[in-house]
């Protein structure tokens, strides 16, 4: 019995860790909040464009969300299509000219490059690309890690990945026999 205790303690302490901050997002168009993650499920509420949501669960095309923010008393829950959402704070939209984004608040600055400081620089900036010299030895190294078709199939099987027959599609969504 005692032997079982240590893993149990570890398990408990794992779950006792503070949960990571919930992801938040906002609607980019008027969006129906559904009771279930299906198009024909009952509509709980209709959210206007720019409505703030807290993301509870991600599930493929759908996200389970809680509408509004902490100061709201009524916060309907339901499912919205993930492509109707953008992540982040609606007041700090990265595109569309949010003032904070425009002045670069929160932007990471580039590591110093060039002749002065080179240690610790792990870049792939346009400048790094311009200064690049071919590295044939590194190419050989990259080629040495290649997988065989059998290894790839084994990875798929272990990961319960079953190949599926899915047609390509055009920009308007029409199925394509072949890409040009």
């Amino acid at each position: 019995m005692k032997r079982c205790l240590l893993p149990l303690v570890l398990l408990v302490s794992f779950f006792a860790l503070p949960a990571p901050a919930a992801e938040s997002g906002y609607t980019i168009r008027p969006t129906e909040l559904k009771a279930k993650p299906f198009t024909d499920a009952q509509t709980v509420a209709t959210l206007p464009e720019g409505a703030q949501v807290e993301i509870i669960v991600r599930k493929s095309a759908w996200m389970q969300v809680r509408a509004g923010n902490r100061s709201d008393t009524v916060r309907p829950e339901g499912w919205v299509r993930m492509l109707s959402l953008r992540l982040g704070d609606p007041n700090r939209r990265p595109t569309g000219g949010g003032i904070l984004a425009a002045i670069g608040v929160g932007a990471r600055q580039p590591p110093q490059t060039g002749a002065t400081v080179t240690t610790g620089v792990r870049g792939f900036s346009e400048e790094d690309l311009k200064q690049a010299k071919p590295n044939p030895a590194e190419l050989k190294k990259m080629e040495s890690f290649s997988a065989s078709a059998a290894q790839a199939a084994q990875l798929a099987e272990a990961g319960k990945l079953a190949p599926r027959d899915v047609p390509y599609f055009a920009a308007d969504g029409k199925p394509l026999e072949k890409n040009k």
Partner: protein
Amino acid sequence: MSARRLALAAATALAAAMGLAGCSQQQAQAFMKNINESGGLQQTLKGLREPTQAEEIDIGRGVTETLLGARPLYDDPELQRYVNEVGLWVARQSDRPDLPWHFGVNDSDYINAFAAPGGYVIVTKGMMKELRNEGELAGVLGHEIAHVVQKHHLKALRKSAVMNLLGAGVAAASAEKQYAELVQKLVGPTKELYARGLDKSDEFEADRIGVVLCTRAGYDPYSLPAVLQTLAAANPNDAYLALLFKTHPAPTARLDQLAIGMGTRFDVFGGSPENASRFEQATRTLRIASR
């Protein structure tokens, strides 16, 4: 495409390029007439045959040598092998399953991914750290695999090679010489192309094909959209994203395109494996390594 149509396309492109350089239309026409009469254009167009697969791979190796010159591989053989297995599994679902596919994670904190002709794909360490699970990795790799299958970079490099030959008035560009020369002189065009990026339409197409390949491989179709959603939330002035944002359409535009193209037809594949724990295990050294 017939040689005649190619000739017309090349001439139009050259005329357009000259127009941008400030030449008058008359000057451009005179220039083209000169090339035609000297046989330079015809000679060059003879050299416009499709490169063989071996030539394509040679070109890809040259491009990859330069990309790895900008930043070497990340030192974790186990991770490199894992990414090769996931990548090959996705590539096996494409129209070019038998190319000798090679995948690599480079040691860069910048968030980006690159494809080179012939089956070479590099993902940055910075991009790997943005991903939540194996499905999202498959989505990113699917997009890059699509560039290779559709020969997007190859076509762009070939165009610049032909334009260079035309521009220099090279009369004796034999078919055999063209690709050999291109491989030798690849460093400049590679840097130029990978700093400029492909056409937007190529990127949107790679997104659509990437979604399909990822789904065919058994992963969630919304894996690539999930990555784009992460990128869309990033600060547009983030230096680590500067090159990706410069060379691709805005992530929000890419998401809007996928919303139209995917519709609700991919909803049936909900509940696909994410293999998140296997992904976390394979990428654990990335989270220990300091920025």
